[in-house]
């Protein structure tokens, strides 16, 4: 199982929720995971109902069996200042740069630079080791930008190549790219069983593959139970209305005669939805990627519900070494060792 798990997907499909559930799921058996967010929205804090995350790793949840989930909201400005500090020992000059708007300029205006800083920080956490030489985090899970931007975001090398052709940012981009294109990384896409998100998922996978970025799983989120199968529904809309009315009465429902039509109509809508969902499943099946599936939590996602979603991941074998091997694309063979810049240090 790749140690760097990137979670993307169409906006609003549940990226943040899925990333958090995954971080919990992977933190079993005393493992330690780091959940990172990069868009400055404090989505993780909201989800875990904690205070806003500072630019600092801190434990945000414990998993069954003593595992720990840590969280970090990566901030591009802070990452750049740290970076300047580390390489140029800027001291208070950093603040002066900030005052002039230079940091703002470098992080928000030049999009590629910002992305290198964000992914660079995440990759640093992936590679970080303690004094005994063990990885500090078993897994790093990123709540990443949506599908429409994910390839650009991860493909920092290309992005930056056009802008910074030499210099430390350039080196950093190269080092980050080595991690991102290796089997150490897996990019998962979250979708719903609806046409638009499924289409966007298919497009996103094609783009990621074209950029040689390793695609992991498709996570189908907010799956609703099928309360009636389609054939039963077809029968229902046929000649059994009288029987249904009688049965309703027997079950203690008053005025059942007038209820049959709306109930059958609701069922027909449900059947139509089930039919559409089946079509979307077929499209997803055609993508040739492992799937995982999370149920709709109809009462809303609370920290307790996150644990249920994590449990669901575990049941489906997410995190098993063998199950995941299929999710990796070949060709990213560049392993560690030669990384420069922040990542390698």
């Amino acid at each position, binding site marked *: 199982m790749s140690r760097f798990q990137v979670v993307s997907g169409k906006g609003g499909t549940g990226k943040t929720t899925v990333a958090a559930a995954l971080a919990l799921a992977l933190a079993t058996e005393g493992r330690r995971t780091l959940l990172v967010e990069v868009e400055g929205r404090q989505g993780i804090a909201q989800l875990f109902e904690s205070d806003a995350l500072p630019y600092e790793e801190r434990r945000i949840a414990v998993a069954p069996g003593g595992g720990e989930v840590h969280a970090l909201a990566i901030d591009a400005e802070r990452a750049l200042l740290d970076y300047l500090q580390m390489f140029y020992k800027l001291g208070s000059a950093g603040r002066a740069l900030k005052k*002039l708007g230079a940091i703002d300029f470098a992080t928000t205006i030049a999009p590629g630079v910002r992305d290198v800083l964000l992914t660079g920080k995440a990759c640093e956490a992936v590679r970080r080791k303690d004094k005994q030489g063990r990885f500090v985090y078993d897994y790093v899970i990123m709540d990443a930008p949506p599908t429409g931007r994910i390839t650009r975001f991860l493909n920092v090398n290309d992005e930056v190549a056009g802008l910074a052709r030499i210099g430390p940012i350039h080196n950093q981009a190269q080092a980050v790219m080595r991690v991102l294109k290796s089997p150490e990384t897996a990019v998962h896409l979250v979708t719903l069983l609806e046409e638009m998100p499924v289409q966007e998922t298919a497009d996103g996978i094609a783009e990621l593959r074209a950029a040689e970025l390793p695609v992991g799983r498709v996570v189908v989120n907010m799956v609703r139970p099928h309360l009636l199968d389609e054939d039963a529904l077809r029968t229902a809309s046929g000649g059994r209305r009288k029987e249904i009315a009688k049965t309703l009465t027997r079950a203690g429902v008053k005025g059942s005669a007038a209820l049959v039509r709306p109930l059958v109509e609701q069922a027909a809508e449900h059947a139509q939805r089930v039919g559409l969902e089946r079509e979307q499943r077929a499209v997803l099946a055609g993508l040739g990627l492992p799937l995982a599936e999370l149920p709709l939590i109809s009462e809303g996602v609370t920290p307790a519900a996150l644990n249920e979603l994590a449990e669901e991941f575990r049941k489906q074998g997410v995190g098993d070494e063998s199950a995941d091997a299929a999710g990796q694309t070949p060709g990213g063979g560049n392993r560690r060792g030669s990384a420069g810049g922040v990542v390698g240090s």
Partner: protein
Amino acid sequence: MTPITDVMPGLETDALLDDPGIRIVVCCGSGGVGKTTTAAALGVRAAERGRKVVVLTIDPARRLAQSMGIDRLDNVPRRVEGIEGEGELHAMMLDMKRTFDETVEAHTDAERARAILENPFYQSLSAGFAGTQEYMAMEKLGQLRARDEWDLIVVDTPPSRSALDFLDAPKRLGSFLDGKFIRLLIAPAKIGGRAGMKFLNVGMSMMTGTLGKLLGGQFLRDVQTFVAAMDSMFGGFRTRADATYKLLQAPGTAFLVVATPERDALREAAYFVERLAAEEMPLAGLVLNRVHGSEAARLSEERALAAAENLEAVGIVDQTAGKAGLGDPADPVAATSPEAPESRLSPERSNDPAPEPPQQEPPSHDRTSRSPEPHSSGRKSANLSVPPTQTEADTDVASVADETSADVSVEQLTAGLLRLHAERMQVVAREQHTRDRFTAHHPEVPVTEVAALPGDVHDLSGLRAVGELLATGSAQA
């Protein structure tokens, strides 16, 4: 669904679309709530009510774009075929990069324009800078309005995470292009020459040095070239952005905030409502999209579940008794129940929902009664979640379903209908609750509702149907 009418004024959609004084309708809201569909449906309806309309869509679903004939990326409005009546509908989808390029070309001579368009920094800015899309939507809106060819412009807004980005992004881009730092980059000497700015000058050269080292000198040179080339245009960009902003404040403009009846979407809608008020921008109302209702609403969730459980208990008896048919005298239920239907309910499930606490504690109530379903009755999902044999699983399930269909007893069928209804009622209640919270804070905002349609909307007749709901949704709200 009735309580809402008492407190919420209805949104008169048709009156809005017919009003000759209204020249621009802006559909805004957070991502994924149906802004594009709403904008297109409003366009169709206004055109079929006789107006000459143009719809500016952003990122429409592919099939919708195809069916409207606007899937070509030429960045100009196209007349949409199939509109009934005197009016006309034109539509286009925004190409952000192209709009940016065209703006550059329109405001400088050919040689300079080429230099700008070829600049790597410009290319990255025009394709990727957060806010470019919003800025270009504004720019395009300004252009369409300036042509004055249409009675009504309906604008969709970019799929930003926050509804407010649409208002803020253009300013952000504008202030970048005009920013202090970028000015310093191109003219450090000028500033350094002034008295008291010596320190700054030293700081500046150190800084450009550092950034140069960091980003590579080429990058800074690209930026400098870009800024120098754009210099003459900055004023123009800003002036036009400001003018469009003013246009949005004018009485000829109406904002429609689109939201789904979900917590996050309505929270964004509330922010937007407040922000519009602060900016003195005219809000026409809220479109509540994908609302669920039920014609069988008088059957409560609790009763439906109780009745379903009752039937399922019977179903087990049924099967052990060898699938006795309905009305079969051997069927114990059929024999006894017509006389005493109420007696079929299990004692702990009283007919009177009052003793149960579902209103106060929906989560726990629900969790216990519903959570097994994805596994017991949701066979398809359970099977499909085993990834590698996905396709096989699908066919398996289909054949299983075929075999079992003949065996579905009327009890099972009716229990299924009741469970579906209970689920629907739960959704209705949750949506109602979310809406009530919004109304409590913004009772003045007129609302219209669009019912959740089971399928996607991707052609004119679908848009017409949504338009009809937009026009009538305030009455039934």
